[in-house]
């Protein structure tokens, strides 16, 4: 379900840029405007990157409206804290937000990310080698990609909830607070995390605003800070903003040396999952896939360059020492179910051509025949991402051969020949030339 993005129809030029960038072929251009096949959309945001007209945008809530409330509770993605030079630490940002009556529940996030990493280390230590590697649940777009394209790997998804959810859950439990919480999201997938989550019935959060929106608001004549807030000692969780940070955090809690693979970007993610599906990842304990380049700092909803964010993270000192008191707290929470995935994940694929196998086979044969007669250059003019997708749409009754401009051209040529032939016919009353 595409809860994370929306199409601004008035801006859509009906070009084919987005449909060919979609990793699950979920987009079609129909009557000059793009539409999304919701079952296939994974909210990765690739189409937003490719759209030259900015017709596809993040489906975020209205920050002005949220901000106009008396008090705003914020749950930030780690990315938020590496976006700004002007506000170089968690405490400065918290201070700036507080002067706006916006409260970020950072300290609970730090604990939740620790708890998630600790729980994962625990699972990986006790899991039978045959059931490894497990897959990270952190990137919601990757979870959806697995559901649509790699359903066989669903059983390998680590049974832990997103630490962003866990952080809010802990905050609610400790404080008893029932206020609405707004997630600062770096990408459309994390918007879906709130509005249509995987692995749980409903989210602990209510609204979403893009990281970029708030960063720009803070930087545009933002509030003055006096470094009066205490420093936040736990910055391990900020490492999750970059690919590899999660694995480093888990390894930090693990007794044994873990073999992990961390990749970012859609192509690398697809390739790694393909290799895993073919059973080629023996000896690997954990795989961490992020659909955006360099990880969440590459999210389309951020304000800062991913390269500068990476540099800032590289330059910051991560405090990997977990204090005794901290560890005790983590272990206490680990005894509860709060960090666990609440609901099984389910495959989400396009329906087969027919429920009846024999009929489906006949249709597939027909589809292959139609495809073999198409030009197979994937030009996109028919509004489909590929000639194969057009053949499939035709078989599903959602298109016709003449949607292909090359087929139309052929048909016009045939028609033209026929016209020439017809025009060559002479009335019987006229003599033919030369006869």
């Amino acid at each position, binding site marked *: 379900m595409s809860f994370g993005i929306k199409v601004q129809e008035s801006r859509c030029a009906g070009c084919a840029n987005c449909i060919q960038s979609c990793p699950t072929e979920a987009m079609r251009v129909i009557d000059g405007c793009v539409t999304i096949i919701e079952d296939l959309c994974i909210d990765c945001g690739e189409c937003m990157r490719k759209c030259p007209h900015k017709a596809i945008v993040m489906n975020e809530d209205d920050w002005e409206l949220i901000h106009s409330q008396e008090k705003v509770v914020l749950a930030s993605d780690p990315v938020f804290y590496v976006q700004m030079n002007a506000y170089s630490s968690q405490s400065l940002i918290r201070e700036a937000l507080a002067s706006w009556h916006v409260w970020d529940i950072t300290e609970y996030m730090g604990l939740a990310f620790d708890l998630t990493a600790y729980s994962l280390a625990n699972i990986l230590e006790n899991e039978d080698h045959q059931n490894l590697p497990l897959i990270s649940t952190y990137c919601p777009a990757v979870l959806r990609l697995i559901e649509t394209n790699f359903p*066989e790997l669903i059983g390998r998804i680590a049974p832990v909830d997103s630490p962003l959810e866990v952080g809010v859950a802990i905050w609610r439990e400790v404080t008893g607070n029932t206020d609405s919480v707004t997630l600062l999201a770096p990408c459309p997938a994390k918007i879906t995390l709130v509005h249509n989550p995987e692995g749980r019935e409903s989210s602990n959060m209510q609204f979403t605003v893009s990281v970029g929106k708030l960063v720009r608001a803070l930087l545009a004549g933002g509030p003055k800070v006096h470094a009066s807030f205490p420093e936040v000692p736990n910055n391990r969780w900020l490492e999750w903003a970059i690919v590899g940070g999660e694995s480093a955090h888990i390894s930090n809690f693990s007794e044994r040396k873990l073999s992990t693979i961390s990749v970012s970007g859609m192509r690398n993610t697809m390739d790694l999952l393909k290799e895993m*599906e073919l059973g080629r990842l023996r000896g690997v304990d954990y795989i961490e896939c992020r659909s955006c380049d360099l990880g969440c700092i590459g999210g389309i909803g951020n304000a800062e360059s991913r390269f500068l964010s990476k540099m800032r993270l590289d330059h910051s000192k991560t405090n990997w020492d977990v204090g005794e008191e901290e560890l005790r707290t983590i272990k206490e929470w680990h005894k509860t179910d709060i960090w666990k995935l609440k609901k099984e994940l389910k495959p989400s694929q396009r329906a*087969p051509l027919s429920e009846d*196998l024999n009929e489906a086979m006949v*249709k597939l044969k027909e589809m292959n025949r139609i495809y073999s007669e198409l030009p197979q250059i994937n030009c996109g003019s028919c509004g489909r991402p590929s000639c194969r997708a057009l053949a499939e749409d035709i078989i599903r009754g959602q298109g016709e051969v003449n949607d292909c401009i090359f087929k139309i051209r052929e048909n016009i040529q045939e028609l033209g020949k026929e016209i020439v032939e017809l025009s060559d016919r002479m009335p019987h009353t006229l003599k033919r030339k030369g006869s």
Partner: protein
Amino acid sequence: MNIIQDEFQVQGGDFANVGTASTALKSSLEMIGIPSAIRRRVSIIAYEAEMNLVIHAGGGVIRYYVYPDRINIVAEDEGPGIPDIDLAMEEGYSTASDEIRELGFGAGMGLSNIKRNADTMEIRSEVGEGTVIDSVIFISG
């Protein structure tokens, strides 16, 4: 009769394109609603068979046939042949060169992986003439 079939030429040493037949077969099976567990087994067999053609046989051809009750994958080559099939079936036994092992392939799991995932598997091989690996997966239900 209602059969879906296709054929893929595989070039020897062409590691870059390994997986073409396997991916195409997997997507066809998805279109006709074959359960994902069967799709996975089929794509592993097709992939390992392709891999064998690339590594050992100097290329060959993969054919697949989808019947309403079963899927048949046939890999055929005119390569060196297998002198001792029982030995070749053993896990970890491999005749792959060091060069290929350095690429991370040739672990000696190919044939045993096919056998593990197929319902029936038959190997016909003549030294100096070539090899045919014929495997079948039943579609239950």
